[in-house]
C-alpha cells in the first residue's frame, strides 16, 4: 500500500478534531493491525473508491468521544446514544472529505460512501479489501482514539 495515501488521513483527523471539537490531538506511531477487534467503543467506517479501493475507520474510546461531542455541541454528553453515533458518522465524513481533498491535489481522486457507525464493547471493524490495515493511535487529554486505513494491494 502506498503510504502517501495514509498521511492525508492523519492530517485530516488532527484538523477536524481541533477545528470542530477544540481539542489538542497527538498522533502516535502507525502500526500494522492484524486483528479485527476495534480499539474502542464506537467506530465510524467509510468506503472509498477511486485510484484504489479501501475503507477507513475511526474508533473512539467512550470517554474520548463523549468529550469530543460535548465540545462540538457545547453541552455535556454522558452516554453513547444515537446523537453520538450521528456525530461519529459526521466526523468520519469530515475526515474523509479533507483527506480526499489533499489526495485530489496529488492527483489521487476518491469518492466516498455514506459512513456506517457501530457502538459496543469489543466490536469488530472489518475492512473489505485485502490490503494491510494501518492503524494510527491518537491521544487527547480525554482519552484515546484510533484511525485505521486499509487499501487494496
Amino acid at each position, binding site marked *: 500500500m502506498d503510504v502517501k495515501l495514509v498521511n492525508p488521513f492523519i492530517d485530516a483527523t488532527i484538523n477536524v478534531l481541533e*477545528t470542530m471539537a477544540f481539542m489538542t490531538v497527538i498522533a502516535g506511531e502507525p502500526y500494522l493491525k492484524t486483528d479485527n477487534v476495534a480499539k474502542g467503543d464506537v467506530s465510524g467506517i467509510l468506503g472509498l473508491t477511486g485510484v484504489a479501493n479501501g475503507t477507513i475507520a475511526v474508533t473512539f474510546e467512550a470517554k474520548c468521544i463523549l468529550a469530543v461531542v460535548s465540545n462540538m*455541541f457545547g453541552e455535556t454528553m454522558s452516554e453513547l446514544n444515537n446523537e453520538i453515533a*450521528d*456525530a461519529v*458518522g459526521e466526523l468520519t*465524513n*469530515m475526515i474523509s472529505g*479533507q483527506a*480526499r481533498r489533499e489526495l485530489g491535489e496529488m492527483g489521487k481522486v476518491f469518492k466516498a460512501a455514506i459512513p456506517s457507525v457501530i457502538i459496543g464493547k469489543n466490536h469488530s471493524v472489518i475492512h473489505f479489501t485485502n490490503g494491510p490495515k494501518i492503524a494510527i493511535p491518537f491521544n487527547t487529554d480525554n482519552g484515546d482514539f484510533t484511525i485505521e486505513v486499509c487499501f487494496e494491494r
Partner: protein
Amino acid sequence: MDTSIKILIVDDFATMRRILKNILKQLGFKNLVEADDGTTAWEILEGQGIDLIISDWNMPKMTGLELLKKVRANDTYKGIPFLMVTAEAQKQNVIEAVQAGVSNYVVKPFTAEAISDKLEKILR
C-alpha cells in the same frame, strides 16, 4: 446583518444541523428551521417564507447541488441566498456549485468565524 431573517438548515446529519444552529443562535439568528434532505427542504421552502438556505452537499434523495439547481430554476425562490456547507471541496465541486448559482461556500471542518464571515458577505 439582519438577524430576523428565516434560515433553512439542510443536512442529513443531525450533528451538523445542531452545530450550525448553535453558531447561528450565537450570531443572533432565532428564526431557524431544518430539514434532513433536499426533498424535505423543498417542501419547507414551498410552505414557509425562507430568506436564506444553508445546505450540505451529500444527502440522500436530493443532494445539495440538486436543491440549489431547483431553487435557481424556480421564479419564486431563485433569489434566495444559498450557502453550501460541505466536505466536498475539490475544484470540480466548487466549479459546479458556482455554475449552479451558489452564493458562497464553506468547507468542513469550519469555525464559527468562517460561517459568520460568509453570512456577512451574503447578507450585507
